């Protein structure tokens, strides 16, 4: 069991991402995703009601907010896994509204799921190979003739092994994904997403259920995505993680965006503290519950 090592470098935060004052819906200098008037109702309940949202290219944006705020629903809408009631959005200039989920993924926008979808009945390596795009062998007629796809398969395998090595999953390559621990499965899902050569990576609670010591290595992987030129949008509850790596934070509550801005600013916003962070954010609960008393002068 590898322990946590201190982070290799303090992340370089991207600044100057927005134009004008930081407020919900503020335009970005170089947006990769622009959404307008996106709404989704379930029965009478408004799940999402976003006036305007721009995601900056090449940066790491965190989407935070209480449960039921609409974060996962928004994810599902933007990636084609759900149909909005109203709204339009574009990805690198291309209109995405109405495009089915698999086409969105093909265009370079890949997502992971809150409940990890590592395909348990496939091996780790098979999971990885599945992620590669434009495989000749996946076409029905061509699949019957191995000589047509053997070479490409070898190339794909090479790439897969490289990425697995990076994620420290290489030793497990022939194990069924079902036998991996929860944290390892999260890593596998992320590694597999990289096989699609994405431009925008959308991670839905990548830290959920992951041992705190493993969190740091996951964070490093996410930072690597940015270094390699990808844009990252992630949903999370772990504020330490958000503070550490996010360049930009978007806060949702009750389906709407209530705040936007760099992490430190957003986390001080009163509305955000009330709805989401709680006033005990940096306080030891042992003190709050009266279980311990600290020497005078300490908080």
């Amino acid at each position: 069991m590898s322990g946590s090592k201190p982070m290799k470098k303090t992340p370089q935060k991207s600044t100057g991402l927005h134009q004008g004052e930081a407020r919900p819906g503020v335009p970005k200098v170089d947006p990769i995703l622009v959404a307008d008037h996106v709404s989704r109702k379930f029965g009478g309940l408004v799940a999402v009601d976003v006036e305007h949202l721009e995601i900056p290219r090449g940066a790491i944006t965190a989407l935070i907010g209480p449960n039921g705020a609409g974060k996962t629903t928004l994810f599902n809408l933007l990636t084609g896994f759900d149909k909005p009631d109203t709204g339009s959005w574009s990805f690198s200039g291309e209109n995405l509204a109405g495009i089915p989920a698999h086409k969105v993924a093909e265009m370079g926008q890949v997502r992971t799921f809150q409940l990890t979808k590592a395909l348990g009945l496939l091996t780790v390596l098979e999971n990885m190979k599945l992620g590669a795009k434009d495989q000749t062998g996946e076409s029905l007629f061509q699949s019957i003739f191995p000589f047509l796809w053997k070479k490409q398969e070898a190339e794909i395998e090479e790439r897969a092994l490289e990425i697995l090595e990076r994620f420290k999953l290489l030793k497990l390559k022939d194990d069924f994904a079902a036998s991996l621990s929860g944290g390892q499965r999260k890593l596998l899902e992320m590694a597999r997403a990289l096989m699609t050569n994405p431009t925008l990576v959308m991670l839905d609670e990548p830290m959920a259920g992951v041992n705190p010591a493993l969190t740091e290595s996951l964070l490093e992987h996410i930072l690597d995505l940015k270094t390699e030129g990808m844009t990252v949008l992630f949903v999370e509850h772990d504020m330490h993680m958000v503070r550490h790596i996010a360049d930009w934070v978007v806060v949702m509550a009750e389906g709407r965006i209530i705040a936007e801005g760099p992490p430190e600013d957003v986390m001080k916003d009163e509305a955000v503290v009330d709805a989401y962070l709680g006033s005990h954010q940096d306080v030891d609960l042992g003190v709050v519950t009266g279980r311990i008393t600290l020497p005078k002068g300490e908080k």
Partner: protein
Amino acid sequence: MDIVSILNNTAQALFSPVTIAFAMAALGLAIHFGFVGLLNFGIAGFMAVGAYGYAISTLTFGFPWWAAFLAAMAASAVFAVILGIPTLQLRGDYLAIVTIAAAEIVRLLLLSTTWIETTGSADGLVAYANDFRSINPFPDGTYGFGPWSYTANQFWVLIFALIILALSTLLLWRLVKSPWGRVIKGIREDEDAVRALGKNVFAYKMQALVVGGIVAGLGGALYVLPSSANPMLFATSLTFFVWTALLLGGAATVFGPLLGAVIFWVLQAFLGSLLPAMAEAGLLGALSSAQAGALRFVLVGLLLVIIVILRPQGIVGDKRELTFVRK
């Protein structure tokens, strides 16, 4: 009891065109259910479409034998597409119900007297194998030995069926081991995960439905090739026999359905001879030999239940591979 005769009947079932046709149907169903997870409870319908596709193209349209087989395959493919378009987007349970209905619709249409000239209605169709027989390379005579003695025509049907089975098995084996097969395996477990990787899940499911359907349709054509085509053959009970054979052998494997089909038919033949003989010898109490013959279906049903409960992965299946096995 005539043990020899019972054993003879049982042994014959090992190398019978009926067994082979059955294996084809089980193979097709393996693609549908074992590999993609599609609950097809209308496999008898695919077999009927294939069988009548062959017979009708020969009798009504005068197709040569090879064109008639192609027509059987095309008809099965069309049937698969018609079934698939409305149902593949819905949950598996819906496909199950729709396929039962579809198979029954096919059977009833064939039974109806409206097109009696083409379909033969309840009397069925006969004498469509002449062109097929005309290309028989084996001269007249008896082939084989012991319980496996065939006339030239019977032998030709058997060899032909074996060739088709071998080709189909090879094809499916290739498919399953290819990247296409990998996508299918992923879809069986979690469609959304596969969609999120950019694969058109609907297209893959449809392809599997068509491929499996064609194989099952060919099985139907082979089923009726030696004798006659009749709507009675394609009742819902046939579907459940194919399911039993599939689950017995191993649903998510390529060789499982073959093994299951052989064991199933051999068992059927054995019980079909043994039980009436036992009844006649007074060993089954008051049961008449006719009733004893029917008893074998009861036992088959029991076998299906036992397999599903005790060993759902079948004989050659791997328990880990099956998503429908609950721990």
